[in-house]
């Protein structure tokens, strides 16, 4: 099979009690690219993510990741295979400090996660790397703050840091810049470009600015099905896309 693609789906489909949220989606994500999934609200973007990360089981179709069929794999399995997602609504551990959040994400690789007799101190080796990641997203100042008290935008940034800690081969980002102020958006955009050098990113994003700036390839979904695909220039030129999604923007 084609190794240029890290992720491919064939005729992927999902119905919710008769309602078809995703319909015959055949997606090919090239290694080392930033691939965007855009489309009107309710087009099925998040659902596609949910299918890829096993939140839902697909009604139809197959998925292949890194040469392996993952149509029936388990959520945790997928994650360990290096395909990690960030959520549309911020997903952090509110009652832990920012540092601990990242450390939990790093910890799994130590392989001591079941060791209840070992001291916490054995995790200190991870702190350095954790701080590094926090710095990347500009949260190093908040390392010791309890996350519950951070504003929404910072929680999103932190979430990306924890995702990065997984050293994912493929990052699924659902609206990474949602709820962020300008300067945060700028930082995150830069960050994504940074991390994308060594890996592949598949993102859902409504901020066309970000999409235009980052993405090599864009798939437009509408009513669950693929409307068109191509570079930003191509896609944004497409009248159907303008009509269905972009409007006068872009």
């Amino acid at each position: 099979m084609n190794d240029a693609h890290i992720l491919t789906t064939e005729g992927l489909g999902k119905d919710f009690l008769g309602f078809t949220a995703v319909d015959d989606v055949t997606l090919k994500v090239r290694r080392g690219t930033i691939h965007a999934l855009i489309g009107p609200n309710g087009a099925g973007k998040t659902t596609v993510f949910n299918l890829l990360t096993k939140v839902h089981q697909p009604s139809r179709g197959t998925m292949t990741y890194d040469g392996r069929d993952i149509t029936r794999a388990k959520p945790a399995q997928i994650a360990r295979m290096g395909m990690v997602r960030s959520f549309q609504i911020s997903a952090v551990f509110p009652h832990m400090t920012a540092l601990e959040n990242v450390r939990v994400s790093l910890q799994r690789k130590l392989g001591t996660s079941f060791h209840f007799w070992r001291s916490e101190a054995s995790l200190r080796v991870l702190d350095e790397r954790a701080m590094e990641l926090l710095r990347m997203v500009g949260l190093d100042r908040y390392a010791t703050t309890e996350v519950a008290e951070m504003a929404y935008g910072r929680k999103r940034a932190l979430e990306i840091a924890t995702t990065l800690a997984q050293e994912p081969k493929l990052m699924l980002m659902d609206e990474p810049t949602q709820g962020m102020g300008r300067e945060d958006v700028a930082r995150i955009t830069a960050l994504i470009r940074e991390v994308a050098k060594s890996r592949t990113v598949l993102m859902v994003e409504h901020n066309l600015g970000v999409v235009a700036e980052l993405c090599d390839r864009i798939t437009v979904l509408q009513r669950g099905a693929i409307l068109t695909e191509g570079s930003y220039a191509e896609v944004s030129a497409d009248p159907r896309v303008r009509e269905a999604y972009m409007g006068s923007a872009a």
Partner: protein
Amino acid sequence: MSAAQGHAREIGGADAAERIAEIHIADLHAYYGESHALHGIDMTVHRGELVTLLGRNGAGRSTTLRAIVGLIGRRTGSIRLKGEEVIARPPHAIAHLGVGYCPEERGIFASLSVEENLMLPPVVAGGGMAVAEIYEMFPNLAERRRSPGTRLSGGEQQMLAMARILRTGADVLLLDEITEGLAPVIVEKLAEVLGVLKARGYTIVLVEQNFRFAAAMADRHFIMDHGHVAEVVEAAELEAKAHVFEEYLSV
């Protein structure tokens, strides 16, 4: 008849020329448990105005809105809505002054269908939108009306959160990041809606990240930083005060 006019009669037929302070906030402090989120906010919004609260993440914009509708346990200072002091009132009493709130986290009810969600908020004044009107504005909702509220997509939930307060006839709208996660087409439509509402004499406070969206129609911008109102910028002086935006929003 617009809710605004009806209201004018309520408070002693004040004549239209005189500008009535719909929202008047003085030295407002708000706390989340131990942490002190608002450090003395002062702001006045007149009837029929559309103002924005701008600022970095964590500046305290959402908290300001929450404080106005009474969702924050500990708050001090003064909040006058339509001339009435509400700092000590319970949330439900405040809402009945004609206040509609669209929360940042959307707050769609999972155990209610989309339609039930839409019909949930009690009508607090005349002149609310008809359900048909709303469905026409947000076709997705009409399509999914029977399914449980939280089964909606992120954006659809956002639409629902906005739509349900348009029904209640509230003429003071507090909207927290309503364009968040919405497709550009929808955002444009929302802009139109706000335009209409403004024309109808609604008073609107908008918390926004999307400056382009906000700048277009706002009469005034309150720029918040660390729980204060750092600057107030009139629509007229946007260019003049561009540096302010640079400073606080890096726009």
